[in-house]
């Protein structure tokens, strides 16, 4: 394949982006990767195209180089390309550094033994320490810092040996990139020292002071002379002693709620001079933090908190001046960072008053109309997980902080006009407040507030139900109503009155819209016993009352399947008997059986109930249409009449998976492949045409099916060849037995044009042995005459139905006419008419003259005038309003003549 153009590359990259795995599998990872690398040096491609190639390398390195060795070679190749760049500003320099870092870090090539690792680290450190002042150099410097930070993130402790250098750079250059790199390295180095314990190769002082390793030091002049030289190596071996195996949790936990394990090592003990040096470094960073962008400030604050937590006896007061500044901001990330430091240090950083202020700021932000809704919701979430100095509740669970009183939260309570997520979050808060308020026995004095809160909650739920009960209400508002009810159930457990009202309201909702049954089933499953019991009872009553008429039957059956077991038998049985009378399809029968199964597993098997249930099952086993359903009914009947209650419960309960024995595995595997695949077979069944005469469309094709062996679950598939018919639906037959009366199938044909055709028939069925088979049956012809229908009866409004003559005249000029001679003599004409055209005769003078009008769906007609001409035969004049069927009619008539 020749080199690709820029456009071709754009297409290749788009395909790679759309589905990397498939594309790489198709194109071959190795070939594509090699091509990408070589094209970077091509002089044909423009810089923007090369940047887009590098972007692909940056994003999909693991797909391109699945193997670390290949990845290492790729990093070397990228560095070689970097070395070949001219010294002038080049747009490729930054993306090359980023791509090389991404490949090295994500493909597992970052390792002590890797030459590419040392090379890249050397290049990056040198670039990060560069002092040239142009914008391009500044950008490359910042990029190098980012690359180093990413390598350090992926391999904490990697840069610990360079801590002194990085601090010096941060001191002198002080850009955001340098600050962030230094803070991360410092955090990881302290974590590594803490883990290493007394056996650490060097203390913090040693690390911070080791500035002589700078690439600008005397030993590294070789590097300096040729900044991007391909062979440049870090002077001396890289210090991997503090570098961990791979990423691990940062030294200090960020969120208590996250259940992060404390670092295995205890806090690090520093000598007083070291501690002073650390404090100085941290203060300096904090002072400069105002100069960072808000996301960078948030990162730095979190990491400095972790630094202080790693070291024993470091007061967090250093952070305080910054927190006051950050507390006033509207940024989610800064607020989050403040909360994280509160979580980390608790009372050591936030006094009780500070805590109260922070909480009020958070409440203010959570209800601030000027903030975007997602930010408000996040603040609300933070309130429910507020890191309190002295938490009362269990850690990790949502709860309202002690200081958050209902009066403080009035602005945070839900209202119907809010968006669903806002409403639910606020409703959750209201429920938590309710639960707390109402649950506390010692607070009877605020009975009034409690009642009001409860009333408000009930009013809100009622409005949501009213919205969901609207016919045609969108599913989102239905879901909202059920989610709100679910949340409310949790706090209403201790309030029987409120719970009863909720239950009543939900039952009314079901009565208004039985089609919400799946939501009710879901709610019953999720909400727990406290609601499930009363609601189940109420729903059963609505269901057996049959609200919503016949259309709601399926929903009622669904509800009864869920709840009937725990309720009295009588009403449910009455309902099922009534439902049985209505009849329905297979799915309906299964739903009915499902409800019966729920009754069988139920508890109320006393009095006359059991006998009635047995009667019902017997009726089901006898009266259902579908043999499968009948079988199931019979099984239930047998189980019910032979097993005791407890055995019945476990027999019909959910199946528990039992471990299989090895031998049974082997046994079952023998037939495994054949049981899974569909077998091609000779059809053990026969189709026969049965004449059917429809009076109006659709034309019905009658077929009988007979089998020569027992077949189950047959699916007969029909395909009309050619484009002139609507597709036919498959026909399901549950079972065929040899010797049984043939099964009659009626296929409605809907021609788009009245042309004869062939019907292709295939069948899929199961054998008694459990195999699934497929067979092709002989095609069935559909003849022209099969489409004949009588003319539609005149509508009552028409006083004079058109006479044959009028019809005859109406065919022209749009249609066509023809004339032919038929070889029928004597009585033959009468016989012919009786046999073939009797339903279509409009007027006749037997035995010599007949007028026949035939309708051909979808919208054509054929008219015949037959006049016997003595012994010579019959003169046939024909007209049609559709010229295209004239040849078909001629052929048909000639066919009749030939059969004589």
């Amino acid at each position, binding site marked *: 394949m020749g080199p690709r153009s820029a456009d071709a590359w754009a297409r290749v990259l788009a395909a790679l982006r759309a589905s990397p795995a498939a594309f790489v599998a198709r194109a071959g990872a190795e070939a594509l990767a090699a091509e990408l690398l070589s094209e970077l040096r091509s002089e044909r491609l423009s810089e923007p195209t090369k940047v887009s190639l590098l972007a692909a390398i940056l994003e999909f390195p693991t797909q391109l180089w699945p193997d670390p060795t290949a990845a290492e070679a790729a990093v070397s190749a990228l560095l070689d390309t970097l070395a070949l760049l001219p010294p002038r500003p080049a747009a490729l320099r930054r993306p090359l550094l*980023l791509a090389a870092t991404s490949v090295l870090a994500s493909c597992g090539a970052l390792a002590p033994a890797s030459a590419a690792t040392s090379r890249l680290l050397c290049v990056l450190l040198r670039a990060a320490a560069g002092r040239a002042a142009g914008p391009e150099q500044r950008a490359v410097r910042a990029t190098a810092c980012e690359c180093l930070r990413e390598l350090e993130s992926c391999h904490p402790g990697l840069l610990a040996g360079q801590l002194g250098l990085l601090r010096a750079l941060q001191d*002198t250059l002080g850009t955001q990139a340098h600050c962030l790199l230094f803070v991360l390295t410092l955090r990881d180095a302290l974590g590594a020292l803490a883990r290493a314990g007394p056996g650490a190769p060097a203390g913090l002082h040693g690390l911070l002071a080791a500035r002589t390793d700078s690439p600008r030091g005397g030993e590294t002049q070789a590097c300096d002379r040729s900044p991007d030289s391909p062979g440049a190596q870090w002077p001396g071996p890289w210090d991997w002693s503090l570098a961990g195996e791979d990423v691990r949790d940062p030294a200090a936990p960020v969120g208590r709620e996250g259940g992060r394990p404390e670092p295995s090592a205890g806090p690090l003990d520093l000598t007083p001079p070291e501690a002073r040096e650390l404090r100085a470094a941290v203060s300096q960073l904090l002072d400069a933090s105002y100069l960072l*962008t*808000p996301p960078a400030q948030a990162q730095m604050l979190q990491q400095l908190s972790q630094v202080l937590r790693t070291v024993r006896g470091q007061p967090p007061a250093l952070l305080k001046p910054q927190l006051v500044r950050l507390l*006033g901001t509207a940024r989610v990330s800064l607020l989050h960072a403040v909360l994280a430091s509160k979580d980390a240090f608790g009372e050591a950083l936030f006094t009780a008053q500070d805590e109260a202020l922070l909480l009020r700021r958070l409440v*203010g932000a959570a209800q601030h109309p000027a903030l975007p809704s997602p930010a408000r*919701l996040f603040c609300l979430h933070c309130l429910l997980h507020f890191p309190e100095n002295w938490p009362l509740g269990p850690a990790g669970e949502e709860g309202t902080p002690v200081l958050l009183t209902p009066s403080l939260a009035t*602005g945070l309570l839900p209202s119907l006009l809010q968006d669903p997520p806002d409403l639910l*979050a606020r409703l959750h808060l209201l429920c938590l407040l309710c639960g707390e308020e109402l649950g506390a026995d010692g607070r009877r004095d605020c009975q009034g507030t409690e009642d009001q809160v409860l009333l408000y909650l009930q009013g809100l739920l009622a409005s949501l139900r009213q919205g969901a009960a609207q016919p045609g209400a969108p599913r989102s508002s239905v879901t909202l109503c059920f989610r709100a009810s679910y949340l409310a159930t949790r706090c209403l457990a201790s309030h029987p009155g409120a719970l009863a009202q909720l239950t009543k309201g939900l039952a009314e909702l079901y009565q208004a819209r039985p089609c919400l049954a799946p939501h009710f089933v879901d709610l019953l499953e999720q909400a727990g016993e406290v609601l499930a019991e009363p609601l189940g009872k109420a729903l059963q009553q609505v269901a057996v009352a049959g609200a919503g008429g016949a259309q709601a039957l399926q929903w009622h059956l669904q509800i009864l399947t869920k709840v009937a077991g725990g309720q009295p038998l009588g009403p449910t049985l009455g309902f099922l008997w009534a439902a049985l009378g209505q009849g329905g399809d297979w799915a309906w029968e299964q739903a009915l059986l499902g409800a019966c199964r729920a009754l069988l597993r139920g508890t109320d098997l006393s009095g006359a109930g059991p006998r009635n249930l047995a009667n019902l099952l017997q009726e089901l086993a006898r009266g259902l249409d579908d043999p499968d359903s009948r079988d199931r009914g019979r099984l239930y009947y047998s189980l019910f009449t032979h097993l005791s209650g407890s055995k019945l419960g476990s027999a019909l309960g959910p199946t528990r998976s039992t471990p299989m024995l090895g031998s049974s595995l082997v046994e079952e595997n023998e037939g495994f492949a054949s049981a899974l695949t569909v077998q091609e077979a000779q059809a053990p069944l026969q189709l026969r045409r049965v004449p059917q005469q429809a009076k109006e469309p659709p034309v019905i094709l009658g077929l009988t099916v007979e089998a020569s062996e027992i077949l189950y679950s047959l699916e007969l598939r029909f395909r009309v060849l050619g484009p002139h018919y609507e597709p036919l639906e498959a026909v399901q037959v549950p079972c065929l037995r040899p010797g049984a009366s043939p099964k009659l199938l009626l296929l409605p044909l809907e021609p788009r044009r009245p042309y004869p055709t062939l019907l292709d028939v295939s069948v899929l069925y199961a054998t008694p042995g459990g195999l699934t088979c497929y067979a092709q049956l002989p095609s069935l012809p559909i003849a022209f005459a099969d489409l004949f229908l009588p003319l539609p009866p005149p509508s009552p409004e028409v006083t004079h139905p058109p006479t044959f003559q009028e019809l005859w005249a109406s065919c022209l000029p749009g249609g066509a006419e023809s004339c032919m001679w038929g070889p029928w003599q004597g009585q033959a004409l009468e016989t012919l008419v009786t046999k073939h055209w009797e339903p279509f005769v409009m007027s006749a003078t037997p035995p010599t003259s007949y007028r026949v009008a035939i309708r051909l769906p979808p919208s054509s007609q054929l008219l015949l005038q037959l006049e016997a001409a003595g012994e010579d035969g019959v003169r046939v004049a024909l007209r049609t309003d559709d010229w295209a069927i004239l040849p078909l009619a001629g052929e048909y008539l000639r066919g009749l003549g030939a059969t004589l």
Partner: protein
Amino acid sequence: MAQRAIWLVSHEPGTPHGGTVRFSRRYPTVEKRAKTFNGSSYVPLPEDDPFCKALLFELRLLDDDKDFVESRDGCSRISKASVYGLPIGGKELWPVLALQKNGLIYVSVPLVEQTLSAHPPLISISGISQAFDLLFGLIDFFDSGPRTEADLSTKVSQLPDLLLHICPFGTLLDSNFLLDNFSNLSIYQAPKQPAWKAGTYKGKPQVAVSITEKVKSMQYDKREVADMWQVYGTITCKCDLEGVMPNVTISLNLPTNGSPLQDILVHPCVTSLDSAVLTSSSVDIMDDSAFSGPYKFPFTPPLESFHLCYYTSQVPVPPILGFYQLKEEDSQLKITVHLKLHESVKNCFEYCEAHIPFYNRGPITHLEYKVSFGQVEVLREKSLLIWIIGQKFPKSLEINLSGTVNFNTMGHQKQPVDTICIGGTTYVKLYFRIPDYTLTGCYADQHSVQVFASGKPKITTCRELISSDYYIWNSKAPAPVAYRSLFL
């Protein structure tokens, strides 16, 4: 503290897939960390197509919400703070932060540095707030300028380059995507200069301060429910000043009878805040001792226009007091609307309209009305009356509208169902803007801006009051109330 991937999906209702991925960016180095941190609970990132499908389904943006689907509609699956779990290949990808704005869905998946076998609280995920910052930044970027398809495509084509600078490895370096050119990026920061102000301004010094106040209201005209109104404001600044770090202090003033500002949230460039500013909160009961300014904000301005602060306030009266009565009589509706402008409010509007919608009733077939002032426009198909009041209330400051409306209930089915305005529950919504006026009285003038930099800057100030969610509910039927209206 990093993002695993970012997506930009456009929602295209009516198309076969319901939407397309306009942009995606994955971070393989972060993904590698995710694998280690998440352990056995790690769920790999899906490709664009399955992701788009799962996202649109979860957000209910596909047309097929006919059936109940447990993973989407289950009553216990309540997403928190726009964070979703997407079912992908039998597992659940979580946390997926997805924000919707103007037909676009902005998505980020933050790295969780722990196992995910049980969802940890969002507050313990350090990358989550960064994901918010990132997406808010992207929203600002795409919301600026004209919202045409061409503009969208241009911005999408700029994204890869922007992210290469602002978020090269999934860790966000700056959330400001709105840059004149790449030389203003934080990455080009010169030493000892704020990273959020990479360049310097050269030219005539000038400072512009604008105060925009919005007023919300819910009025019921009922004895047992209190009316509610709230004011909130935004101060926007643009400072064109020379020097690396010019210091500016803006003081907002209130007249003697002004309403104190509360819940003040400031831009991160503000260097310090008075404790009185920090503690004035709307949760407190107002009294005369409340801090009433001046509110001083010292800061070093960024180059671009920015929101210096947001505030709320509790003013003693709503600017327009109204009542609305709607009664159903003989298959027609009788409506009466009465509006009164408070005498303290500046009677000089840019526009003032009252929208009177009718829900769940079908198109309007017949209308008879009488107004004491202004004109009425009828949008029959939308079942909406617009009462255009214009630039001024009459001298009496009171105006009325009364009339009868008939509907074609046959056309009812075609209209979307409203689940709040059922029966007589309905409202009048007011839209107005009063230039050069604030309800709190808050103002900034020539003396409010102190600049500690060379040259005397030209100072421009402006202010406005805009209505936002200003509802007057039918007093003859139940109306949705806020808890606050019941108990204050």
